[in-house]
């Protein structure tokens, strides 16, 4: 058991390291952009803006590109390249962008760690099941709204309510007040619920979630070796019922792989990420 504890700790760190790496990278890009606009900053990093390194910018630009041959304002081809790479990763592994890369997801997880300390086992279980299930459709509505309004205007309208943009620009004076309010509400919400923005409102998460039904590497639970300890369910940030599923293809899964035998499940080779095996 001692050995398992050590191993879990080590493996848990891998996702953390990747998350921290991307969080720092995006922070450095955002801060450098601010300094470049003030006449200083590093030329090594160029003066790329957050919009140019956001794959969702590529998604909302597609309609514009197809109809008028223009990118949406502030979006460049780099966003389209990232969109393609994230789609490739999602087809391979599911929405790993959400679980491993997105800095706003990481930010919510960090606050969630505090919430877990405060509320212990009650954490992430405050929202009644039926209400939670109903609210999870909101993010699809947000996705439809963002795509429609961006296609209609050719402008990056979502920036005005985007907590991700607010998180990395709050010091610049460029952030709309409603985006700051949403960021603060998300941070407060994350004290009670794991990743509230991802669960209920994130349009990009809604889109990538569909990859769960087609991803090549899937998460399988072996019913024969499962001891029904329920630890996988407790570890899942998205409240997915792993313990009663044979295969995880729920649209809300963020491919964090916290439920796997390598991370949380105490029985080896019971919850695994596989391709081509049942």
């Amino acid at each position: 058991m001692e050995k398992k504890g050590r191993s879990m700790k080590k493996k848990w760190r891998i996702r953390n390291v990747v998350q921290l790496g991307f969080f720092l990278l995006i922070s450095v890009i955002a801060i450098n952009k601010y300094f470049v606009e003030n006449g200083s900053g590093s030329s090594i990093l160029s003066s790329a803006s957050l919009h140019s390194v956001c794959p969702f910018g590529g998604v909302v630009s597609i309609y514009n590109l197809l109809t008028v041959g223009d990118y949406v304002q502030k979006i460049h081809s780099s966003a389209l390249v990232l969109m393609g790479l994230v789609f490739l990763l999602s087809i391979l592994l599911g929405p790993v962008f959400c679980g491993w890369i997105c800095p706003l997801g990481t930010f919510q997880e960090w606050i969630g760690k505090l919430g877990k300390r405060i509320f212990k086992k009650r954490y992430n279980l405050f929202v009644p099941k039926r209400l939670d299930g109903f609210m999870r459709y909101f993010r699809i509505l947000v996705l439809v709204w963002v795509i429609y309004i961006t296609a209609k205007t050719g402008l990056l309208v979502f920036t005005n309510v985007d907590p991700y943009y607010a998180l990395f620009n709050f010091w610049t004076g460029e952030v709309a007040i409603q985006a700051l309010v949403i960021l603060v509400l998300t941070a407060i919400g994350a004290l009670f619920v794991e990743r509230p923005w991802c669960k209920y409102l994130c349009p990009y998460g809604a889109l990538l979630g569909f990859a769960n039904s087609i991803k090549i590497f899937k998460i399988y639970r072996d019913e024969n070796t499962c001891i029904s300890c329920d630890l996988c369910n407790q570890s899942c940030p998205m409240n997915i019922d792993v313990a009663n599923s044979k295969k995880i293809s729920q649209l809300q899964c963020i491919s964090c792989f916290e439920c796997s035998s390598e991370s949380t499940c105490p029985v080896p080779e019971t919850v695994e990420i596989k391709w081509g095996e049942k």
Partner: protein
Amino acid sequence: MKLKNNQIGVLIVIILIGGIYIAKGFDLWVTESDKIPVKLSEGIGAGSYDPFDIRGSYSFEEISDVFEMDITLLAEAFQLGDVEEAKGIKSKDLESLYGELEDDIEIGNESVQVFVAIMKELDISGSDAMLPVSAVQVLLAENPNRSEEVLTYLESHQVEAYSNGAIPEIEAQTDSEGLKVNGNTTFSQVIDFGVSKQEIEAIIGGKMPPENQSVRSYCTENGLSFSEVKEALNTLIMP
């Protein structure tokens, strides 16, 4: 085939970094606008870059490169200090450098546009931007035999104004130059600025384009002069 967490971590990093690296190899990794103005489609100087498409976000170094002008002339004309300092200053920064002048007179991006147009001996009809005396002196020193139209313009559009030399702090809305049409403005924004679809159609002489298209790209596609369309729209926005 099974995957472990550390393999997944490595795969994510390799696909992203490798993908960006490949995209760079194909020149697909572009993170900024290329800051190149449209070319004039007709009239004097057809085929050369349109100075009236210089945007506030262009630095004086970029303006000097694109219009093949000695940056020392720009620095002298707009009192931007030494050449190194001038390189990083953006055209829109002039507004803060010169501050508020009497009678709502402004030295800003439009002053740079007119200055460059005169330097390149291009058409300035329709312009009304003011120039600091230092810019007028540079223009006359470079070519004392300017046309009658230009000399009259310089006479009536010069102002005793001095740059305060302080590079401005970042503005609250860096990409907005107020309610004005610039190179990025889409038709939906023009409508938001209060111009009707009929007015737009009258100016462009055709059916209303898709609202998500930028004015500039429409003009380029249809062989219209962007600066003329922009001027006409701006007149309606700020009568």
